[in-house]
């Protein structure tokens, strides 16, 4: 415990001397590990790097250690070993300097049911000693407006629907201009229209230059809004990088629909298509290195009648299953 904290101090000072590094990586963890008192290893040697300006998707099955990681990044949980730096400063030591610039939604919203939505935000804002009380009411009103809750601001939070609570939680994260937003399942409990609105809001925030760290179990959500992603399973980081690269990692498949499957399979093998499988009138295989137009021409030249010729793009879901070897909502 002592040794890493000494190192942390050194690297913390180095980061202050080198703002370039701090600007490049909004979150950087090294060997971040959390072992709970029961001996359970929740997070195991995590090396996570979140580039500035990215919309970073944080994926993993339930129980894979995502929430523990987020709590360590926010200074709520002390790491067993390893270091975590947020905005270039070590956590949890620099919470007072870092957290006013970070908006967070952690494991769903938590509200005072007996207070109105507006009073909830006033209270959270008052908790931040760097928040100017003179602009408090105006900032709260702006945040409520931004998440579409202006009309329900005076209602007791107890009477809010789950979606409204989620919006209020988001509003709390938007009380100040932030450099980083940490959003844990931000569209949970929202209807499809609400999800679209929140995703649009995330894109808008990201285009303003805010880095967004987004954990979600909805893969299409990550694909739609994220530029980068990391995948965790059983406390370990399996992969991280740009979303396009991750999806490309799991290669797509060439699919030919034809009334002559036998002949098509033979031609495809000749053309260097690997792992050719025939299923009724569908022949699929791993696409070859050469131009697919040539493959199609070869099929036609061999007299194969082609009804459909497509390259099925690998989704992030394929990549995810390939990486974690399990379905998505399975506890790890």
């Amino acid at each position, binding site marked *: 415990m002592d040794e890493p904290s000494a190192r942390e101090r050194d690297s913390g000072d180095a980061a202050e001397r080198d703002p370039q590094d701090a600007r490049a990586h909004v979150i950087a963890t090294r060997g971040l590990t959390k072992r709970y008192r029961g001996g359970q290893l929740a997070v195991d040697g995590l090396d996570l790097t979140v580039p500035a300006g990215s919309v970073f998707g944080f994926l993993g099955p339930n129980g894979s250690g995502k929430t523990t990681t987020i*709590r360590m990044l926010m*200074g709520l*949980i002390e790491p067993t070993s390893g270091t975590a730096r947020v905005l270039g400063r070590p956590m949890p030591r620099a*919470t*007072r300097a870092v957290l006013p610039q970070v908006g967070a939604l952690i494991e*769903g919203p938590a509200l005072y049911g007996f207070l109105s939505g507006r009073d909830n935000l006033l209270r959270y804002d008052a908790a931040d000693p760097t928040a100017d009380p003179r602009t408090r009411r105006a900032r709260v009103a702006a945040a409520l407006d931004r998440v579409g809750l202006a009309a329900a601001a005076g209602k007791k939070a107890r009477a809010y629907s789950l979606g409204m609570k989620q919006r209020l939680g988001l509003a709390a994260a938007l009380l100040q201009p932030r450099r980083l937003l940490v959003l844990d399942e931000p569209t949970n409990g929202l209807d499809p229209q609400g999800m679209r609105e929140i995703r649009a809001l995330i894109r808008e925030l990201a285009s303003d230059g805010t880095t967004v760290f987004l954990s979600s179990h909805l893969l299409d959500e990550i694909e739609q809004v994220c530029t980068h992603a990391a995948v965790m399973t059983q406390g370990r980081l399996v992969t991280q990088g740009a979303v396009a690269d991750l999806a490309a990692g799991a290669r797509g498949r060439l699919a030919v629909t034809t009334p002559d499957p036998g002949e098509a399979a033979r031609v495809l093998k000749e053309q260097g298509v690997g792992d050719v499988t025939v299923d009724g009138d569908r022949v699929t295989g791993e696409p070859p290195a050469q131009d697919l137009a040539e493959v199609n021409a070869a099929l036609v030249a061999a007299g194969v009648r082609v009804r459909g010729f497509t390259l099925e793009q690998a989704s992030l879901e394929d990549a995810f299953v390939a990486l974690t070897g399990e379905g998505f909502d399975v506890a790890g």
Partner: protein
Amino acid sequence: MSRAEALQTRAGRRPSPLWTFGLLRSELVTTLRRWRTLALLAVLAAVPVLVGIAVKLETRGGSTAGPGGGDGPAFIAQITNNGLFLVFTALAATLPFFLPMAVGVVAGDAIAGEAGSGTLRYLLVAPAGRTRLLLTKYTTVMAFCVLATLVVAVSALIVGALLFPLGELTTISGTRISFAEGLGRALLIALVVAASLVGVAALGLFVSTLTNSGIAAMATTVGLLITVQILDQIPQLHALQPYLFSHYWLSFADLVRDPVYWDDLVKNLGLQALYAAVFGSAAWARFTTKDISA
């Protein structure tokens, strides 16, 4: 204002040290807006009303109230002569249980209640700061001690003035003091009673840092209060009793002596300070190192 400008203003702006008290103000207001706090204060305000009416009914025939005395201060017999004694009686009646129970509920809920509802994590990432939040909570609980005691005292004064005559009063020592001085002593007693609750408040706050359930923390604190009260009654534990936070509670009656007998009053205040120091430090040590997983 564009975002870049906003960030610039933010960087150029110097937060005032006074802004840190925004949380205390929010905490005080939030505590007083809880239905539970208001219910506790209503119960406390009702006690003097019940005592006053009971004494009035019992003495309607013109006789003075019962033999009075027992172990507690013999104030009740004096109420019919002077309504101000209802203040002393009501404080003596609520100090052993109602007042510390109310304080135990508010103190026990302080951290654990926020943890249970999940609002604690949002306060901490705001960032409230753990030491700042704990100090704010303790200050609020102490403010509640004063408020709760004043509610009892003021309610008793109003009921006493309505049902009984007011005027010069006779001290326990038998001397007579003016009504104004009596009123001054009543205020002093209220403050001493409030200070007597500081120990329970610190204990409750410490218990509150141990659990994520507000109900469990409240029940534990009130349970400890009852246990200590019982221990204080067992003669065999004579050696232990001077260290129980409730042992010198009723010493406030010495303020109605002439001259005031200070020994037990000072012991009481010293003991409360000791409890505040010990359990306050324990709460701080626990809360600043705790993993917040709720």
